[in-house]
């Protein structure tokens, strides 16, 4: 099921073994996942893989022609590099197809210790230029870069011509409006950051308060949003909150919305993108199966020279809204 003749690879999220199986069964070429600790940027409660679960997941995927990438994409805590080193060592030992890294020092470690291990550059490394990507390629032999969600499609096309590595882009799901890996908004409000703790706006600091018909969402004690009766809610990620600035109360950074690039997939392929990534390791397996199936159909349709079919994905998006985000210049 997973094997396809498509020019692009569908890289799909798995927060749990059940989600991994759902993704592979729904047509994922690859699944990316993380260990159940602070070494990955989705270090959410109850989520992620033990070493045994990873071994089983690799077996499940490989038996069906799929691949497994392990994200070790937080920045190792000074004084404790061994936790991150062990994650790289174990991923290599368990036969994963690539590790996804963000930290320079960890890239250096992986390249020296496991010269045969395929290295991908995480979006958290925020490599937004040909020079930055070439730097990682020349220094550590990075074979693929996951591009930050700050570039337009035409910038991606320019990049493709200038870098000697494969390009992977996000095509669906949660949308960082800040340059990934360089955002301390979460730690400013909660003390916990994506870079250090693997969680943005961690659930431990989230409160929903019912006030009559309204629900107020707070992060670290700061009110991030209020939703009226019947209004679709959002997760209290700082950059999707309502704030008052310049005398107006509105979504200063971004509305609660999800990235959806179904309509521009052909342009992405034309721009030289090699892999489409679906965000959502923290989402349930229903989400994974639904989105992966939709994108499988779309990618296969494009490979046959057809227009991708319309997909009804509004139900699973934040705020019921979708955007092509930074891929379109007008977003800026």
């Amino acid at each position: 099921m997973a094997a396809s003749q498509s020019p692009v690879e569908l890289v799909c999220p798995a927060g749990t073994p059940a989600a991994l199986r759902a993704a592979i069964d729904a047509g994922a070429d690859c699944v990316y996942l993380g260990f159940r600790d602070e070494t990955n940027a989705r270090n959410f409660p109850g989520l992620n893989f033990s070493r045994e679960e990873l071994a089983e997941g690799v077996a499940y995927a490989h038996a069906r022609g799929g691949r497994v990438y392990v994200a070790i994409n937080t920045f190792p805590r000074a004084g404790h590099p061994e936790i991150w080193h062990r994650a790289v060592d174990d991923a290599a030992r368990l036969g994963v197809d690539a590790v996804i890294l963000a930290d320079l020092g960890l890239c250096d470690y992986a390249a020296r210790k496991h010269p045969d291990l395929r290295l991908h550059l995480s979006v958290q490394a925020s490599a937004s230029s040909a020079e930055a990507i070439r730097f990682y390629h020349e220094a550590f032999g990075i074979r693929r870069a996951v591009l930050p969600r700050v570039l337009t499609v035409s910038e991606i096309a320019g990049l493709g011509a200038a870098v000697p590595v494969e390009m992977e882009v996000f095509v669906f799901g949660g949308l960082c409006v800040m340059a990934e890996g360089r955002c301390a908004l979460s730690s400013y409000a909660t003390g916990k950051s994506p870079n250090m703790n693997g969680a943005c706006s961690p659930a431990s600091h989230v409160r929903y308060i019912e006030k009559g018909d309204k629900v107020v969402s707070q992060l670290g004690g700061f009110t991030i949003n209020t939703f009226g009766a019947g209004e679709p809610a959002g997760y209290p990620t700082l950059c999707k909150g309502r704030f008052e600035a310049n005398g107006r109360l509105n979504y200063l950074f971004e509305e609660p919305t999800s990235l959806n690039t179904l309509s521009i997939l052909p342009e992405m392929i034309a721009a030289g993108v090699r892999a489409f990534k679906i965000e959502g390791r923290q989402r349930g397996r229903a989400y994974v199966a639904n989105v992966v199936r939709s994108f499988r159909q779309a990618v296969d349709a494009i490979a046959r020279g057809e227009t991708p079919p319309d997909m009804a994905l509004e139900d699973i998006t934040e705020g019921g809204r979708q955007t092509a985000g930074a891929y379109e210049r007008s977003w800026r």
Partner: protein
Amino acid sequence: MQYQRTERSRPVDPPFSPVLLAGVALTPVPPRLLQPLFDGVMAVVRRRHPDILERLSAYPDAVVGIDPVDLPFVLILEPRPDRPRLTVRRDFSDMTTTAVVRGPLSLLFALAEGRLDGDAVFFSRQLVIEGDTEVVLALRNAVDGAGIDLDADFAATLGPLARPLRRVGLVGGRLFDRLSRDMDLIRRALVGQALKGVDAQSARLAELESEVATLRRSLRQRERP
């Protein structure tokens, strides 16, 4: 870990559904008579899904209230690794909980089986979360990751009773699916005539219908191959 006093302050309006009817029927039943059923459920979890409790091991002291808004009782989940408990009660009075999850039973079933996406349901305001969001998220992730099939689990709980029950579709999500298909008919037969011409109530009825439709659509999606 923080605890909160829990009251059923703002119950979610229950959707018009077979569960609601079943709930009305269950109202006179004292919770203690239902307790053995939930002891059985917990035994099945320990036997068939130990990974759920393992994923919750970081929250040994959590007390999670589960409030199926269309049933006349609530559940208390305590995922203590040594002795996990699922207790049925009339309500949360005199209780302290770390978090409470409220929603229609069909939704809670669908979430448990991973048929619906928890975030999506929450975004759409059909599910209400109070208290420690982290515990709820851990529970959601643990349950979703377990790959639960309620039919099979009910079979394990009910033993020899399960097969005949399953044949008539009275367990798991399919119970709801089947019965809700006939809901329009039942509703029309029961209340349709009486409400004719009353605009305000018609609007409420349309709302109910769309709620049932939403749930049904969600259930249908999972049926597709």
